[in-house]
Each structure stands twice: as structure tokens, then as C-alpha cells.
């Protein structure tokens, strides 16, 4: 097994929305700085944007302000957000969108040249090729792109992150990348819970199935502080294909109706004094209607005009072609029949919700030399793609400033050997636990004991304690995992990362003894929201020496 050693100024882990934007930014600000992107797949079509995108849902239209944006996000998350982070994002949204438009992204415009408003904070784009366009912008810079290299761990000397290890699946080569600064931009975590679709359709899911929480797990393993994992995200999506409902509800103004044709949303938020339905209430209402025997629930697309319908299909082809295929397979059009909706399995994400690294305004993590941007960065929900670009911009400015008086760290050969052996060990075993078995076991534990779909997402202490115990046992079986080829080895590494993320998630779920987010974190044993006690961030720090997860609280204002 050969080893490739690379030295760089800044290493970006994950060449997705945030990672690509970061590489372009560094080149703009400091053309002489060396950049390496370590990417698990190929940056032209990887991660969340592989399918494309039809809207940018974080944008400040005229009449709105960064302040109004922050207050919207705060309401959506029932008082718990990092206002400093969200404000910084809001200030940069429009400029970031304009930058990506200049890369070639088509955006729907009015005759006067302004962007057409899709929703209050949303614009319509033709983003089938958004990812290739971002990649093209990166390819115009001298950044070195390591496609098909899976990041496995940070290189950490106990003080500072000085690079990362990776495994190249095409050339069976171990990578040691030394860097003065590392920006982690790997995305959130799917596959922690049992997915909606079983068996051969297991990856027909909402979130990118290859975003498995590696960036979180790598941070957890070096004791980086994490925040708000208990703020899970469960998406309300089109049943079976998990196409976004916003395209229909916001883009085409369709109402949510139950099986009796009733518009059911109002009764779930009017009584709590709201005049606007929170994203989580759209899901909660749908679950409750179904439990009450008034499901299935739908988005009423039967009122669409023929041109609306065509436009809707075009929007979906730009982002989720499966739903167009679903209609074609059923031999129907959305005008003939409402579109059935349901909740997905829970995900751990920092772009829709706020699970991730605990960071400061400059996007420093709690570990020196490590900066976070995009979905892995916590505390700033509803940042989506445009907010991820803004975070990438902020993180690169911080990293560039920081490395002025930093030199590359020395890496002991023994550390390289230990990591190489850890990564490759599944290949050397003849019998044991397959990655598939490991993943299914994890997903079953999480589904049944930590509030998955089969439990209607609800959680309570006794079951969570059982999840804690079972996950600890499962972690002990990691050493028995086998792999027969590189593809299989990556699956095994994904299991390791998912288990680390799941364990932290369970501790967060245990710790918050209230119900803050009625759908994302519904506690049967503490069903009320308790502002006097729980208007705090729940954070965690893993200790790799003792294998313990320490929980800490942080005040709302930072």
C-alpha cells in the first residue's frame, strides 16, 4: 500500500456547495495560497446537489432585512438559534447568490431585472447543473482536487488540526495531507435511522445517502464541541420519492389536505397563537391527521392549470426527477390527483436544522486550525445552499488570516501507521460483520429506541438509555467488520462514522428534558416546552481516551 503525502496551505474536506465556494473564495482573496479539496466522490456531481436544485430558499428580497430574516429563523426554531451566526449569514446571502449566478446559474428574473420572488425568502433557479457550475469555477483555480478520496480522520497533535488522512478508492492509496488550516465542509448525516423505503429502494431517500456524517464524526473523535444534535430534521416530502414539498406548496401554492379533502393545517398552529405555520407544524399536523385516521395526507395539486403543471414538472426535473417518473409510471398528472406526502426518517443536519460544530462568528470550531462551513456547522438553521456559501466565505477569510504565522506540523510516522491500519483493517478479515449488517443493526436500534419512523419519532428516557447501551455494544463490534473491496471498505468506514454520530445524538436527546421542537424532538416524558430552564444550547464533547461524552450547556447569546 503506497502513501501519497501532500502539503498545502488550506485543506478543504468535502467538495460540495460550501467546499467548492470556499476554494473559489480563497483563490480570489489570496491567489498564491495553496488549496487542496478532498472529495469522497467527484466534485462535478457530488453530495446534496448531485440531483440539482430548483430554488434558493435563503434570500433577502426587497422589503426584508437581515434582522427580519433572523427573527423568522428564531420563530421557526422556537427561540433557540445562534442569532450572531444567522445574522452574519443573512448579511451575505444576496452577494453569494450573485456570485454563483456569475458562474452561470440561471435565475428566474422579472422584466425589470430583479429576481422573481418564489416565496418570501425564496427565488426560483434552473439549477440542474448547479454542481457542475460550481465545480467548473473551482477547476479554473489552481486548487488541487482529490476526487474519490474519502477523509478518515483529522491529523491532530492535541493542540491543533494539522491536516487530514484520506483513502483513495480508485488507486488504493493512503493520503496524508498536511495543511496550515482545515475547513470541514462535508455535509450532514443520513442513514442513522432506518429509512422510509426498505430493501432495494433503501437509498431512494431525501438526503444524499453518501453524506454519512463523516465531518461530524472526525470532529467528535478529536473532542471538538458539537451542538444541537437533538434538533433532528425530519422532512415532509412526497411519499416514496421524497421530492421536496416546497416546490408544490410554495412554488405552486398548493394546500395540504387530508383524506377527506379538508385543509387541516390551521388547527395545529392557530391555537398556539401563530398566524403562520412553522415548517415543523406542517409535518406535525400530517402525522397527527394520519394517527387520527384522516390520512393519507396530500398536497392538493388538482387546482393547477396546465401551464402550472408543466412548470412544476420542469422545476422537479431540475431537482428531483424521480417524481416526474413516478407520475409517468402511474400514468397520471398532478392535476388529476393530489400528491401524497409523509415524513422521512430523521436526519442530522445543520442546513435545515442546526446540528453541528459549535463555532464562533468567524467559523472557528473549538479546535485550533479547524473551521466549519455549511451543513456541518451548527447553530444556524435554514441556511440551505446560499447560507452555506456565505459560511464558506467567512471561514476562508478567517483561515487565511490565521495561517499567516502558522507553519506545517510534523507528523510522526507511527501516527500514520496507526491510522492506515485502522482504515484498512476490514480488508484483512476473512469473516465477521459485513458493513450491510452493521448499518442495518444501527438503523434498527435508532429506529426503535431513539424515535425513528416506526415509533412516530417519539422518544423517552428509558428507550434512549437502551439505545445508549446498544450503541456502546455495537461500537465494540466495529473491530469485527469485514470488507471485500474498496467500495465495501468505504461502506465499513461509513458505519464507523455513523455510529459515532448516533451515540452523540442519543446523548443530546437524553439531555434535553423538555419538548422544544414538537416533531423533531418529541419527548413523551417531558411533553412541555420549558423556557425558564431550557432556553440554552445543549452541547457535547467526546473524550476519546475514556470513550465518554460530556454534556455542557451554553447560553443563547454568544
Amino acid at each position: 500500500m503506497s502513501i501519497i503525502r501532500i502539503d498545502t496551505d488550506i485543506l478543504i474536506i468535502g467538495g460540495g456547495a460550501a467546499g467548492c465556494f470556499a476554494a473559489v473564495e480563497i483563490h480570489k482573496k489570496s491567489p498564491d495560497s495553496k488549496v487542496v479539496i478532498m472529495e469522497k466522490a467527484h466534485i462535478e456531481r457530488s453530495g446534496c446537489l448531485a440531483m440539482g436544485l430548483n430554488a434558493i430558499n435563503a434570500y433577502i428580497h426587497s422589503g426584508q432585512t437581515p434582522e427580519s430574516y433572523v427573527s423568522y429563523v428564531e420563530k421557526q426554531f422556537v427561540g433557540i438559534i445562534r442569532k450572531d451566526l444567522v445574522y452574519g449569514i443573512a448579511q451575505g446571502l444576496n452577494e453569494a447568490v450573485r456570485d454563483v449566478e456569475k458562474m452561470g446559474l440561471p435565475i428566474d428574473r422579472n422584466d425589470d431585472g430583479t429576481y422573481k420572488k418564489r416565496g418570501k425568502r425564496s427565488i426560483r433557479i434552473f439549477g440542474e447543473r448547479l454542481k457542475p457550475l460550481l465545480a467548473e469555477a473551482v477547476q479554473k483555480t489552481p486548487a488541487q482536487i482529490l476526487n474519490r478520496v474519502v477523509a478518515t480522520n483529522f491529523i491532530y497533535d492535541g493542540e491543533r488540526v494539522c491536516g487530514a488522512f484520506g483513502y483513495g478508492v480508485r488507486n488504493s492509496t493512503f493520503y496524508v495531507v498536511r495543511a496550515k488550516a482545515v475547513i470541514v465542509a462535508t455535509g450532514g448525516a443520513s442513514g442513522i435511522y432506518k429509512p422510509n423505503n426498505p430493501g432495494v429502494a433503501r437509498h431512494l431517500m431525501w438526503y444524499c445517502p453518501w453524506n454519512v456524517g463523516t465531518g461530524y464524526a472526525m470532529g467528535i473523535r478529536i473532542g471538538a464541541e458539537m451542538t444541537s444534535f437533538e434538533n433532528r430534521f425530519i422532512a415532509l416530502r412526497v411519499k416514496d420519492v421524497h421530492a421536496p414539498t416546497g416546490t408544490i406548496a410554495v412554488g405552486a401554492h398548493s394546500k395540504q389536505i387530508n383524506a377527506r379533502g379538508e385543509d387541516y393545517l390551521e388547527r395545529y398552529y392557530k391555537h398556539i397563537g401563530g398566524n403562520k405555520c412553522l415548517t415543523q407544524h406542517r409535518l406535525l399536523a400530517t402525522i397527527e391527521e394520519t394517527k387520527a385516521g384522516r390520512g393519507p395526507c396530500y398536497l392538493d395539486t388538482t387546482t393547477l392549470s396546465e401551464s402550472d403543471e408543466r412548470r412544476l414538472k420542469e422545476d422537479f426535473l431540475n431537482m428531483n426527477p424521480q417524481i416526474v417518473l413516478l407520475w409517468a409510471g402511474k400514468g397520471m398528472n398532478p392535476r388529476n390527483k393530489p400528491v401524497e406526502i409523509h415524513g422521512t426518517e430523521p436526519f442530522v443536519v445543520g442546513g435545515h436544522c442546526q446540528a453541528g460544530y459549535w463555532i464562533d462568528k468567524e467559523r472557528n470550531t473549538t479546535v485550533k486550525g479547524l473551521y466549519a462551513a455549511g451543513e456541518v456547522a451548527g447553530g444556524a438553521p435554514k441556511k440551505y445552499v446560499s447560507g452555506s456559501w456565505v459560511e464558506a466565505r467567512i471561514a476562508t477569510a478567517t483561515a487565511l488570516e490565521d495561517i499567516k504565522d502558522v507553519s506545517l506540523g510534523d507528523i510522526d510516522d507511527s501516527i500514520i501507521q496507526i491510522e492506515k491500519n485502522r482504515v484498512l483493517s476490514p480488508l484483512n478479515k476473512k469473516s465477521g460483520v459485513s458493513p450491510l449488517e452493521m448499518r442495518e443493526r444501527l438503523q434498527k436500534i435508532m429506529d426503535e429506541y431513539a424515535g425513528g419512523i416506526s415509533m412516530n419519532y417519539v422518544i423517552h428516557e428509558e428507550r434512549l438509555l437502551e439505545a445508549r447501551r446498544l450503541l456502546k455494544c455495537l461500537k465494540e463490534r466495529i473491530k469485527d467488520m469485514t470488507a471485500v473491496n474498496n467500495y465495501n471498505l468505504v461502506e465499513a468506514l461509513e458505519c464507523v462514522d455513523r455510529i459515532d454520530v448516533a451515540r452523540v445524538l442519543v446523548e443530546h436527546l437524553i439531555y434535553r428534558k423538555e419538548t422544544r421542537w414538537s416533531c423533531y424532538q418529541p419527548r413523551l416524558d417531558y411533553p412541555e416546552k420549558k423556557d425558564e430552564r431550557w432556553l440554552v444550547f445543549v452541547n457535547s464533547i467526546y473524550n476519546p481516551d475514556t470513550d465518554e461524552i460530556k454534556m455542557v450547556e451554553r447560553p443563547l447569546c454568544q
Partner: protein
Amino acid sequence: MSIFIDENICNGCKGLAEARCERICPGDLCYRKENMKAAIRDQSACWTCAACVKECPVQAIELRLPFQACSNGASLKARLKHDKTIWTVWYADGHQEEFIIQAKCLKGDR
């Protein structure tokens, strides 16, 4: 089934180090067999993102849905042009629908 690769159309991207679908698949699922035809190693791991469908220069790859999601056959193909993407959808009854969608703004429009 998530994607269907028509071996009669696939030319294996001869001359390239990797087939284009193999190069692009975000899940590392496509590969080239010994007969230089593309294949998918695990249908159940496919996200149906259509990256391979779009990248294939000879339209040998169709997007289909797993049987459990929709038991009637329908398929989808895409052709990438310089600034637009052309989609063809085949319905279960055989009729088809075409969509031509802008995918890139040209230099002068930016």
C-alpha cells in the same frame, strides 16, 4: 431497478480511463465490465439522482424507479446541450413527453 443501462447503446466510453458514469456517480456505483460495457454494482444503493443519465453521451442509461415505489414501467433520459438540458419521459402507456430546460446562462447574460 433504479437505472437501466442498455448494452446495445453503451460504447463503454472507449479511450477514456473511466467510463463517464463511473467517473461521476456520487455513490461510486457504476463500473466498466470486462466487455467494456457499463454496469451498476448495486441497484439498492442507487439514489436515482440521474447524474449518470445526464453524463452518458450516447443516452445508454435510463432512470427507472424501484418496483416497490412504482410497479409500472416508466423511464427518463436526458441529453445535455451547451446551455440546456433536454429530458424525455416515457409513460407506462408508451407515450412520451419532452422538456427543454435552460441549465446554464451564457456569458453575455450573467
